[in-house]
């Protein structure tokens, strides 16, 4: 077990009965979160960048866009279809990760350093700059809970954070759960994993978040859930 398995469980717990959820590229944790929520019996309709609609089973590959990774699908639903759904306000859940996220929920997937002469040129924000305005809920995950990833101001606003109208944003990290408070316009610490202290959380991020007491203690993966994650993802792509 690794902290990433707990992050995946945290993501899965954000899903609800009746959700239509979409996963993009480089999103193995999101795919596994949907698989886990469905295993729990939650009625989540699954559409994805591989364009395989409602697969029955999966075997994770290094690409979350691999169509052979999704088994027993009911047909093709394109990303164009999925994004049209979002534009009409009907996509319930979109998953994102980011190199940096800040207090305001702004995401950076573009560059570390200056835009014109970047220290690291990141892949780009893909759908973020518009789904942040049109998905009903965004579930973000961070592989790393650190001062590098949780920053006061992102180096570049690839996708601006939520407004008071939406979307609902949650961020799952290896240590904690944040939820965006539409009233104050900030990420608020709402949960933490067992054995993690609030100090541990705050000292490992570059902004001091508001805290919503009482903090929820997040569930860690069970042995059965880990067995399932290993069955779907035998090569451990989720840890990469």
């Amino acid at each position, binding site marked *: 077990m690794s902290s990433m398995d707990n992050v995946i469980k945290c993501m899965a717990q954000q899903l609800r009965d009746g959700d239509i959820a979409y996963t993009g590229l480089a999103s193995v944790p999101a795919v596994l979160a949907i698989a886990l929520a469905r295993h729990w019996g939650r009625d989540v309709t699954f559409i994805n*960048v591989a*364009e395989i609609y409602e697969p029955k089973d999966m075997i994770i590959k290094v690409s979350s866009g691999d*169509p052979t990774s999704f088994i027993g699908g009911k047909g093709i639903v394109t990303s164009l279809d999925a994004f049209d759904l979002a534009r009409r306000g009907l996509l319930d859940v979109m998953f994102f990760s980011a190199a940096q996220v800040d207090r305001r929920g702004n995401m950076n*997937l573009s560059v570390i350093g200056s*835009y014109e002469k970047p220290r*690291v*040129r990141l892949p*780009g*924000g*893909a759908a973020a700059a518009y789904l942040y305005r049109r998905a009903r809920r965004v579930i973000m995950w961070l592989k790393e809970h650190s001062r590098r990833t949780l920053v006061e101001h992102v180096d570049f606003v690839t996708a601006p954070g939520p407004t008071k109208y939406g979307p609902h944003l949650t961020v799952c990290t290896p240590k904690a759960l944040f939820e965006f408070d539409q009233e104050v316009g900030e990420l608020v610490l709402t949960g933490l994993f067992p054995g993690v202290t609030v100090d541990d959380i705050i000292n490992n991020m570059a902004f001091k978040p508001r805290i919503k007491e009482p903090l929820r203690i997040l569930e860690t993966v069970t042995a059965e859930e880990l067995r399932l994650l290993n069955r779907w993802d035998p090569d451990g792509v989720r840890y990469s």
Partner: protein
Amino acid sequence: MVKSKLMSISEALDLINDGDEIAIGGMSFHRNPMAMALAIARSNRRDLALIDREPGLAFDLLTISGRVRRIRAAMVTFEHFGIAPGFRRMVENGEVEFIEDVCEGVMAGLRAGAYGVPFMPSAIALDSDLVQLNVKRGIWKVIRNPFNEEEEFVAVKAIRPDVAIIHAHKADEKGDVELQGPKYEDLLKVQAAKRVIVTVEEVVPEDYFRNNPDKLTIPGFLVTAVVHAPRGAWPTSMYGYYEADYKVIRKYFDAVKSGSNIEEVLRVFSNV
């Protein structure tokens, strides 16, 4: 009589001119037009521009090939391997110009191009830092909804690539194409582009479509050239035909990341 659109890969290469903007089919490691990308990488074309939404191997290879001056995409990723290595190197070194777009922008621009209208309204967030950049570049513009003056949105200018290159499953010599499984934005690219090169796993007789009319995905009048290129997506996946060869993709990733030059990188694809 009707001319056949069947041609060799080098004849198809003649349809690409220096300076052309090329839309690349497929996505990440899936159904990339590798046969054609390798041919371009080995050619003497220059100053090409590339456009795609979420490209992968073919796009990255062309980016480091020396044939390309400008690239435009929403995300260039090698997924769980890491950041696309050629893309990262060339952009960080300033050796290619990168127009950072978003999915919504590429889709809207391709739709406008495909539909023959000057632009499409989009749902791009107005306060993304990309808006000012792409407005300055002249490809986006912030305008008002004519039916509700209080609402502002980003209009995306039509994308009309000179060439689209798509790898597909089957085609006849008239250019009628069967494309199985995931489509990505390939049909829009075919419509939006001025010339269309389709490489295929199999060339079929015309009667194939008359006997299986539900197999037609792209009608021949949209297609300029059909090239018979079996395993033409390799090492990316070909839905229903073969899986992605992640070992070769990994080799490419490592070679580029370690700083190999294009000749060395091309060797990754030659020891089949």
